[in-house]
């Protein structure tokens, strides 16, 4: 049956969205005639702020870009700057950076799974309403999030906008006693994290198989965080330096944030893309749990992102324990650096996907130019593509309330780095 109605869904302001955003959707004759997701990202201005700043200031400045994933910004930045200065990081610093990143994954994923995504899948308008009937779920989320914050605080000095990172390593090494306490807490949380994987796999997730291209880092010996080559499910395998040869950022009229395309096509970054491309890099103990859930990766169901996040929480706990259980104070928590002129690239796996930085410095170590490509920006085109497919598959003849809720669910499923993304769609429907 052809639906002859014309539906305009306009979301003029996305409340609680960093930088502001909007969604506009028009359905005409049973087809999506227009769909535009707009996200305005103020972090882009940081590229200009960074110019003429000394390299030593960069980790603290870029940490301010995001309150949820500041470590990712710090890690991509320091790796880029270290590549300019010709130093490579290994040993204690390399391991502890990975631990710090584990903290951010745990904190960010736990927040999203329990407080942002779960209400969608359990049929509640928000986490507060959900907490009335599922207090245990909310408590688990808060506990795991707090544990992630503990790890970030351990090496970052504080969990929001941490200040412990410097080019070459860390300003401070925590004492073995502090670390031992945290390791004890991490071990205690393992059963809960494992149960989280099973719980997410048991959710009544929409069955929405789609075809899309995944992009992530890939490392020869570990699940990717700070290092690796850029690979895709379409066969791409390049050095991060060659990002521009395949990826293009472009302005679209309806958004001040740049979209990004891989060889002219939308692509996915984030936990589902990561696990789809790197499941074999997870330890056997994690892969065993995945197998027991019955879910198979690679998966084309975008809603399996929530399971991928849970898997990464479990993995991050195990990885942090592995790296910390034989912790010893280093002679020095950093490698000395000497600034020199040049350009360098860094790309790491933020909770929401690859975060690519490039800096050019003069001989005194002052930033001449900076370029930052955040994951949410890269996912924008993919989110629009997903919305079209998902809503058409869902049924455009449904009422506006149902369409809005499904649209919100689809967008939230990407955990876009727009803080508190729950329930950000205010809707106005014009019928003609």
């Amino acid at each position, binding site marked *: 049956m052809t639906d002859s109605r014309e539906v305009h869904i306009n979301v003029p302001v996305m409340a609680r969205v960093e930088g502001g955003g909007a969604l506009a959707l028009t359905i005409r004759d049973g087809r999506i005639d227009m769909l535009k997701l707009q996200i305005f990202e103020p972090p882009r201005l940081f590229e200009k702020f960074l110019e003429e700043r000394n390299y030593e200031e960069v980790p603290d400045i870029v940490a301010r870009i995001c*309150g949820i994933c500041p470590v990712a910004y710090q890690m991509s930045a320091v790796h880029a700057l270290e590549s300019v200065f010709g130093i490579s990081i290994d040993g204690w610093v390399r391991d502890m950076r990975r631990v710090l990143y584990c903290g951010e994954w745990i904190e960010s994923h736990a927040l999203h799974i329990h*407080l942002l995504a779960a209400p969608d899948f359990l049929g509640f308008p928000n986490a507060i309403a959900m907490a009335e009937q599922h*207090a245990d779920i909310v*408590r688990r989320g808060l506990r795991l999030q707090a544990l992630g914050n503990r790890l970030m605080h351990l090496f970052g000095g504080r969990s*929001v906008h941490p200040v412990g990172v410097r080019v070459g390593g860390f300003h401070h090494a925590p004492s073995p006693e502090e670390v031992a306490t945290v390791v004890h807490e991490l071990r205690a949380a393992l059963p809960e994290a494992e149960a989280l994987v099973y719980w997410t796999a048991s959710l009544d997730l929409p069955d929405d198989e789609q075809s899309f291209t995944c992009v992530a880092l890939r490392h020869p010996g570990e699940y990717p965080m700070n290092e690796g080559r850029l690979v895709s499910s379409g066969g791409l395998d390049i050095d991060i330096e060659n990002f521009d040869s395949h990826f293009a950022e472009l302005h679209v009229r309806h958004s001040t944030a740049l979209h990004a395309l891989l060889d002219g096509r939308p692509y996915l970054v984030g936990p589902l893309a990561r696990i789809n491309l790197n499941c074999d890099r997870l330890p056997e103990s994690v892969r065993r749990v995945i197998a027991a859930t019955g879910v198979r990766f690679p998966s084309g169901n975008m809603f399996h992102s929530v399971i991928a996040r849970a898997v990464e929480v479990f993995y991050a706990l195990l990885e942090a324990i592995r790296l910390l259980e034989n912790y010893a104070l280093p002679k020095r928590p950093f490698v000395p650096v000497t600034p020199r002129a040049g350009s360098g690239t860094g790309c790491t796996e933020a909770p929401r996907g690859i975060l690519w930085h490039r800096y050019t410095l003069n001989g005194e170590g002052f930033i001449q130019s900076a370029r930052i490509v955040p994951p949410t920006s890269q996912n924008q085109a993919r989110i629009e593509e997903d919305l079209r497919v998902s809503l058409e598959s869902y049924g455009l003849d449904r009422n506006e309330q149902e369409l809005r809720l499904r649209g919100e669910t689809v967008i939230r499923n990407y955990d876009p780095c727009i803080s508190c993304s729950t329930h950000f769609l205010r809707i106005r429907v014009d019928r003609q």
Partner: protein
Amino acid sequence: MSPVIVIGVGSPFGIDRLGWDIVRLLQQHGALKPLVPDTLTMESADRPGTRLVAMMKGAEFAIIIDVVQSGMEAGTVVQLNQDDIHNAPHQVSVHGFGVADVIMLADKTGDLPPRLNIFGLEMGQDTDWTPTQIQKNKLVDVIVNEIREFLAARADE
């Protein structure tokens, strides 16, 4: 964990740093210094979100300090309790529903301290409003008295 915790919330910039300023003044207050750390903990938090729950965990009395926008005259000392938060028809701080949401969430999960108050200064509708030192001192005095009364009642129990 000390029985009383004071948390100044907000970003450290502009009017949003009121919580930070008040915590700093409280930390310098002669009547409170002897209580730290066994009886009293005081800290500032840059938009803590759900971390607030963990920060308050184990306390008997939690005091949150923030800028408040509730329709009163700018500079008015505002004291809200848990019921006020639940009944608030609109946001009660410049962080949107952040603090209120977290308090309601913690209430649902049973993780709120037995007593919780939000103290702040009303900012009115003028986003450029800046509190005077007198207004800040008045707020400090109110909080110090609340802590004293709480501890006195606790000692009598």
